[in-house]
């Protein structure tokens, strides 16, 4: 796989505070990555370092094959950091023209990209008249101007209303569907779960996990069960070797698996034991549950 960004043992200290501690990971072409972590876990700092706006304390990183300087590499990258930053006195189109000049790309794509984010009819309006959602969409248009190899988004839906969040997510999904590599930093887990295939989990500047979303914790999933013979079922579950922890919340029984086991296999087993299940669902932990499990364990 073709690497786009490689980070080796990166460390950033702000005085006594260590914002990023010995962080290493690689971003490969074609995947959608999420950087997860609570507020203050070093997500934005890490992105700031690779985007040339924050100085690293130790370690190194390189873009692509390592032969391009960071600022040249950034011309092939599209990035949005926290808030959209543009010149308030320029119109949407003028702002994008400036970005074209900085990136050294042709200005012919401005209309096309404004259409992608649905701002074509507002292109001659000044940036300061835009709502936050429109500003954020303009930022995405600006990041797409050079048809980037990778799109970096830092909390792209922060502070937006539900419609704005929905619009931004839809745009991100469309872009991902075109095969663009995306790196999405967020503390909103359902957001990451919906679009990402890989995650890097950070806590207090340290990497807890990097890899595929579905391999984040070694788990075989769990059953959610309901039955008339409630107590009998619990008794059986506790004796069964494949079942680990059993959690009871009122009617609902949650049984965690130690060994892989299919739902039909389990159903048959219960039927043979004379227990009729009124409710059987096999699930894997949601990203949120996995994340909390991972951050609590250490």
């Amino acid at each position, binding site marked *: 796989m073709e690497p786009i960004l490689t980070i080796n043992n990166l460390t950033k200290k702000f005085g006594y505070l260590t914002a990023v501690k010995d962080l290493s990971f690689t971003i490969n072409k074609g995947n959608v990555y999420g950087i997860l972590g609570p507020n203050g876990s070093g997500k934005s700092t890490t992105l700031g370092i690779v985007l040339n706006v924050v100085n690293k304390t130790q370690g190194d990183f390189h873009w692509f094959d390592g032969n391009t300087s960071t600022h040249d590499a950034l011309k092939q990258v599209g990035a949005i950091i926290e808030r959209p930053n*543009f010149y308030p006195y320029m119109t949407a189109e003028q702002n994008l023209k*400036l970005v074209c000049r900085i990136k050294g790309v042709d200005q012919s794509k401005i209309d096309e990209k404004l259409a992608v984010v649905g701002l074509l009819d507002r292109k001659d309006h000044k940036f300061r008249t835009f709502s936050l959602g429109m500003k954020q969409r303009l930022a995405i248009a600006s990041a797409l101007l050079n048809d980037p190899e990778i799109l970096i988004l830092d909390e792209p839906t922060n502070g937006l209303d539900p419609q704005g969040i929905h619009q931004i997510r839809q745009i991100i999904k469309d872009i991902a569907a075109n095969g663009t590599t995306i790196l999405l930093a967020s503390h909103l887990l359902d957001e990451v779960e919906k679009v990402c295939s890989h995650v890097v989990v950070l806590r207090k500047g340290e990497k807890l996990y990097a890899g595929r979303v579905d391999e984040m914790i070694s788990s075989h999933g769990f059953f959610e069960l309901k039955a008339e013979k409630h107590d009998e079922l619990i008794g059986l579950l506790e004796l069964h070797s494949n079942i680990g922890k059993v959690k009871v919340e009122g009617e609902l029984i949650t049984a965690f698996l130690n060994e892989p086991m299919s739902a039909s296999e389990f159903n048959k087993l219960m039927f043979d034991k004379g227990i009729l299940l009124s409710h059987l669902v096999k699930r894997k932990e949601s990203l949120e549950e996995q994340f909390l499990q991972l951050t609590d364990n250490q």
Partner: protein
Amino acid sequence: MLRLIKIEFQKLWLNKVSVVLIFISFILPFTVLILSSIKINFFGFFTLELGELGIFNFPIIWHITTFFASYFKFFFAIVVVSMIGNEYSNKTLKQNLIDGLSKKEFVLSKFYTIVFFSLCATLLIGIATFVIGMYYSSYTEATIIFREVEFLLAYFVKLVGFFSLCLFFGMLVKRSAFALAFLVVLYILEWIIFWAAIYISGTVEMAFKVKGFLPLESMYNLINQPIQRIVMTKFPEKTDIIYDYAVHWYEIAIVLGWTALFVFLSYQLLKKRDL
């Protein structure tokens, strides 16, 4: 280089305030120059014609116009500090870097713009002075006309030096108003150093030499004492008071040294900073 100037020009031209200030800094010295060159009749009581004082004679006119025109540099100084201050307050500096402008290119784009505007201002003043001089001057031989044309060079160096100082202050404090206040602080500081030098060395002469190495004073020294010179042309017999008004190579060297230092420090500041 052209790309960097284009980027900076777009930022300036689309900002109404900076356009107005740029026009003022170009048009105002022009207007003053032209107004002062015409004959003004005060309701028939008396006529004021500065041309008759001989200040529009070659070669002294080069000295006079560059000296007075350089006071209008403050308007463009506001533009310089605000073009840094705005980048910080709009956070567009961060965005520029993310979009692929290097920190070096950022500082250079500002510096090139400064050099470009200084060049324009110098050319305009040069042309205006030449035209007015040709109209009023008693002497129009080529050797006399171009004898003190080095004041134009001094004017250019002075502008570049002063705006580089503003660039550095803008980078240092990130806010336009504070950066301008720093200019006043520096002015006071130079006088304090001057008084300290008197106290230490004991002579005023020595103290002026020390002050001559400081940024604002060294810029002033490039084009200085035109009034004394006019007075002297009226009383040629008073040769015992000797004023040194000429443009010396070392005066230019000092200002160029400061310019290089300010631009370098601006870059270093930006490089060290986390945005």
